[in-house]
């Protein structure tokens, strides 16, 4: 059996740059305060400037796809919460959407509206958390992060009342949602959504015009339009580079075409634009939430799903606009209740391809921020 190879601490001086000073190889390793989980960057530094960068991950690899090939379709729904553990609801919805492509199930109106409400709440949680971590990497000792966590607590309490758990929600089923929101829930949700813009204004006065953030984040990690499309970037990273591609508008999945909301587009494609695009997206999500809560219809919440989910042989690729980008599920079924192939297309894994391109030529401090602006969650990257 191959013994688990322990990585020897490799810190040796290799190569020389022209000043005769050595090129330093630094492994910004799995235990690094600002790599958002177990993610390692092998940096080659000339002084402070990054000369080469190799992302190394796989420390949190549980082979989610192999597990899914042993259990039935509904049984792997709780596992999707563990993919991007910050937004459980959108993972569930993506999986439910692609499974509903295998077997056509009519999802009732009320369930569609609840799905939109829960997905947009997750988007708020994800974006304000990300901005907190991004500014924390910049060095502000946790103050913005703790404001974001304070707001996140309120929304997580909503999820706990609705689905029973704060993060591992396991709430959306094929053809609808698991249970109806209790009576006080909608009033509470309305109160939190109405209070959110006040928090956003406070967040913006604290962060957007801050000269130090402007100096540190602008012109750092620039990705042009063509590079963004070529690197298959999706989500806020793509829109920060000026490409108008939001799957809610393109695919019109669920009932997103009934809500009027805008898509913020950045101009320069640098870290500051990604930060600002996420700020503006939060405002749009609040707009959607207001409309969705206002005209949430009555009615039952679960479509006529078959007792045993046994799709006809075939394949389906369902995708949604998760807060981090395009989250897709590619399912191949061979007629049995167990999926033949279960492939997850995680947004942060693909967005990492552009990391090396963005970091070359910048300083070590910039490499940290660029990683922070990509918004990776290792549960999703390593699957």
């Amino acid at each position, binding site marked *: *059996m*191959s*013994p*688990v*190879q322990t*990585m020897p601490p490799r810190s040796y001086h290799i190569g020389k740059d022209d000043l005769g000073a050595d090129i330093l190889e630094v492994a910004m390793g799995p235990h690094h305060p600002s790599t958002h989980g177990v993610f390692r960057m092998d940096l080659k530094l000339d002084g402070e400037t990054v000369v080469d960068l190799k992302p190394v*991950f*796989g420390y949190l*690899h549980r*082979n989610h*796809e*192999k597990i899914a090939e042993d259990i039935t379709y509904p049984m792997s729904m709780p596992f999707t919460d563990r993919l991007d553990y910050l937004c459980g609801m959108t993972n569930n919805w993506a999986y439910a959407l692609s499974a509903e492509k295998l077997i056509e199930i009519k999802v009732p109106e009320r369930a569609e509206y609840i799905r939109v409400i829960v997905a947009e709440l997750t988007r708020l949680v994800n974006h304000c958390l990300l901005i907190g971590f991004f500014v924390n990497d910049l060095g502000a000792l946790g103050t913005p992060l703790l404001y974001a966590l304070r707001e996140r607590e309120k929304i997580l309490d909503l999820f706990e009342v609705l689905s029973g758990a704060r993060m591992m929600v396991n709430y959306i089923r094929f053809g609808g949602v698991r249970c109806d929101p209790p009576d006080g829930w909608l009033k509470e949700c309305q109160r939190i959504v109405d209070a959110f813009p006040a928090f956003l204004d406070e967040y913006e006065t604290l962060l957007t015009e801050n000269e130090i953030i402007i100096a540190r984040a602008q012109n750092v990690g620039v990705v042009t339009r063509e*590079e963004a*499309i*070529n*690197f*298959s*970037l999706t989500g806020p990273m793509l829109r920060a580079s000026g*490409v108008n*591609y939001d799957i809610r508008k*393109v*695919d*019109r999945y669920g009932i997103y075409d009934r809500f009027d909301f805008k898509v913020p587009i950045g101009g320069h494609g640098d870290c500051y634009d990604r930060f600002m695009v996420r700020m503006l997206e939060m405002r749009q999500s609040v707009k959607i939430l207001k409309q969705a809560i206002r005209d949430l219809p009555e009615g039952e919440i679960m479509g006529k799903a078959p007792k045993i989910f046994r799709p006809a042989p*075939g*394949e389906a*690729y369902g*995708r949604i606009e998760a807060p981090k980008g*395009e989250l*897709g599920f*590619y399912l*191949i079924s061979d007629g049995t209740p167990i999926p033949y*192939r279960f*492939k997850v*297309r995680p947004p942060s*894994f*693909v967005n*990492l*391809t*552009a990391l090396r*391109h963005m970091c070359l030529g910048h300083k070590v401090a910039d490499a940290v921020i660029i990683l922070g602006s990509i918004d990776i969650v290792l549960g999703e990257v*390593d*699957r």
Partner: protein
Amino acid sequence: MAAIDHKGVIRQFPELEWEASSGSLILSPEKVDEVVSWLKEDPAYRLDYLSCVSGVDYLEKEVKTRVRNEAGKMVFKTSLSPEKMEVVYHFYSMEKKTGPFILKQRVLSRENPVVTSLTPHYGGAELMEREVYDLFGIRFTGHPDLRRILMWEGFQHYPMRKDYVPPNDYEYEPTPHGDVLERARERREELEGQSP
């Protein structure tokens, strides 16, 4: 999201095989570069965004197909579908906002499956193809640096293949299920056997 009609491609490359069941275009490794660059530039398609690269592994399997035999009665005919490995590419067009276009590269041999890489055309495919290589063992010619991405370098097998037997190194944990216990017992004898 308007779906893409594949007839234009068939007209352009008549020798390609279009698999109707999964609605995907089957490519042989040498024709890949030409077709992909055409798909990227052609005004009708403009497939500039490669969304997802996934590997699929098919073992040898009898397929029972209902066919009407000469006596006009439906009867099951079992045919042997060969073992094959596929790399499935999902394309979208960001410019024209059109639907998924599926492209497959099929390889029959399981010992040394080789496929041409799309990284020269699409930068985004680099990590995804490395993952397919890491989990399925499909080599990609033309890939800038083909290394394992999720498993550690010393790992020998390809975990996502259907015939992969997971290593028996469960640490001993007395959970109620029979098979885990029994595997752990095997493991313990094996360890005692080795240790002096």
